[in-house]
């Protein structure tokens, strides 16, 4: 039988065991990790170059559909690797220990419209510190979806099966709008702050460069085959969007993940922090390739416990975390990717409607 609360002394030793795992892993960081990330970077650059080249070549090739599909696939794979295994993880500071300026959380700019700096605020600070705390962690439904019964139902929620699909297709734009609180920015212009305006300017500047290369410059370079290249780039971006959307949604919204009232943060201990991360996150299982493609966010639980440990270490850490959880009898939410996707989909549809027992389900504790 598993439960989700621990006595204060249990909580303390639970925290100490997780801390010990962290200390041990950090002490072991070194050449293996540096070599790993460099290899990923090389593969990613190679895929990107190959993808662009194949898309150019596709117009000249009698095997057009095959070459085009290969090029688009390589480009999509490169964007996925860049965003998930490189960008997201580098921006968490996972490779800051290397002192390599090209792997520094402070200077890395990733290949997606959201500026790195804004992401580091909305994601590293708000989401990772206040994970699943209602009202503080805006990743709970991204200010537009109802993903927890305690969120009030409005008629707008009826649309959410559809809006979730749209969000998936346009995911990078959702991410980009996130730190700015776009709905408020758009609909309450009188309340705009200078900081918000500055962020919008930065976002526009970056979005312009992102759009320019994928939808203007590369297509123009292809001359008569501009449309092939444009379509390939568009599809690659959308594939990346949908994949990252799936990975992120499976991290916190499957059945069994919990949300917390703001009071949960009062006097939270280290053990309490770890336990909240555990209760609010879910893993999915699969092949090695699946883990790499998800930037190892397939191990969302470990990622939330150890956000700045190189993510390729999560699978080996997960074995120990799981054992510790077993020892304390706390649930460890892990399942196949398809069952987590299914679980999230059901929840989104179910919560589109007012909850059966009114909305009195866990509000403030």
């Amino acid at each position, binding site marked *: 039988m598993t439960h989700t609360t621990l006595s204060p002394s249990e909580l303390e030793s639970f925290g100490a065991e997780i*801390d010990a795992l962290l200390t041990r892993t950090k002490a072991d960081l070194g050449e293996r990790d540096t070599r790993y990330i460099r290899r990923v970077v090389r593969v990613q*650059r190679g895929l990107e170059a190959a993808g662009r080249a194949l898309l150019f070549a596709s117009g000249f090739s009698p095997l057009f559909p095959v070459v085009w599909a290969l090029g688009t696939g390589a480009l999509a794979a490169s964007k996925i690797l860049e965003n998930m295994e490189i960008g997201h993880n580098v921006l968490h500071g996972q490779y800051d220990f290397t002192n390599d300026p090209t792997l520094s959380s402070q200077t890395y700019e990733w290949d997606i419209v959201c500026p790195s700096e804004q992401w580091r605020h909305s994601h590293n600070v708000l989401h*990772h510190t206040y994970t699943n705390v209602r009202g503080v962690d805006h990743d709970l439904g991204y200010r537009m979806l109802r993903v927890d019964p305690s969120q009030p139902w409005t008629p707008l929620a009826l649309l959410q099966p559809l809006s979730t699909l749209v969000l998936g297709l346009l995911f990078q734009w959702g991410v980009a709008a996130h730190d700015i609180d776009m709905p408020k920015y758009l609909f309450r212009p009188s309340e705009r702050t200078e900081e918000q305006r500055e962020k919008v300017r930065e976002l526009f500047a970056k979005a312009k460069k992102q759009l320019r290369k994928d939808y203007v410059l590369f297509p123009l370079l292809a001359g008569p085959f501009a449309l092939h290249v444009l379509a390939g780039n568009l599809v690659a971006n959308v594939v990346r969007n949908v994949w990252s959307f799936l990975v992120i949604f499976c991290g916190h919204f499957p059945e069994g993940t919990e949300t917390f009232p703001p009071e949960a943060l009062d006097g939270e201990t280290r053990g309490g922090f770890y336990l909240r991360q555990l209760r609010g996150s879910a893993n999915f299982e699969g092949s090695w390739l699946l883990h790499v493609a998800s930037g190892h966010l397939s191990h969302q639980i470990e990622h939330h416990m150890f956000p700045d440990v190189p993510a390729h270490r999560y699978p080996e850490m997960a074995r120990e975390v799981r054992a510790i959880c077993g020892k304390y009898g706390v649930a460890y939410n892990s399942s196949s990717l398809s069952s987590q996707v299914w679980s999230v989909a059901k929840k989104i549809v179910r919560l589109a409607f007012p909850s059966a027992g009114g909305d009195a389900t866990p509000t403030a504790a």
Partner: protein
Amino acid sequence: MLDPLSWGARLASALVYPRTLDDFVGLVAPLRSRRAHHAEVVLVRRETYDTVTLVLRPGPHFPAHRAGQHTALTLEIDGVRRTRVFSIASAEPRAGERHRTIELTIRARPSGLVTPRLTGRDARALREGDIVELGAPRGDFVLGTPVPDRLLLVSGGSGITPVMAMLRTLVARRHRGEVVFLTWAKSPRDTLFRAELDAIAKAAPLTCPGLRIAVVHGPMSEGDLAARVPDLASWEVFACGPSGMLDVVRADLRKHGDLTKLHTEQFSAPTRPPAPEGEGGEVTFARSGKTAEGRGPILPMAEGAGLRPKHGCRIGICHTCVCRKVSGTTRDTATGALSTDGDVDIRICTSEPVGPVVVDL
């Protein structure tokens, strides 16, 4: 104006955004990188039992050095980039010429993290063909132009390297003025460049008739300079060695020479063993000129000193508070790990000072 080259470069940069061209150039031809200078290790030569000479071939953009200058060598040890400063020991190239290689001669500091991995019989940190990063040559410990008529080059231990660069340069130029080269070493087996010094001395009557070389074993003591160099005040002196030795040089010149003609370079920062657990220390905030003293994380100390550093979670997970540690040792409050290198990024919300620390805030 249409400059096709710069337009080409601008187009290429726009195409690879948000990567830079250098991110790609660096992967295939690191020596051509513009972001930082790189060099290929062409030879690793054991010099004495605890020293090694690296012969490096820098990329085409590397500026020519002047004899006596140093460079920052960055290499990766156990997956972590470490930067250390070394004098360049090879001769400077002729005016307008570019050098093909430069040499660094490095002695192991027993308590060091980097140098012991480069020297000794089973040093494996660098091999021929490896690529390292180099900082542009710096330092004003250089011979003026024209070279002074009477030049006294004094060194001790591995402090010989910058003056060796000067000696090699003068010999290559067949310098005609008076030059005295004095070097102190612990023992014959500790003497660097012994064979080369012998050879230079032997050939001197033909190449540099005014050159005299002496290798002295044992410590330098007061009066040594005056005893070996007559009319000390008439010499321009370049001295490099440990701080104790430089004190002796200064004392001699004060008595018998002309201190205004002294140029010095101290070759190694004294190493400081990490202080005991939880000792705290003084933090200097270099940019604002403020200081704070105490224990525990640096972030609250900075705030106490009236600074407002960027931060987010305050518990070490978001990396918003990352800033540059210029020097000193800090301890990670969560893992207990020590950071002893200078010029590295630390999270100030979970780093506490261990002894004096300088951060760029």
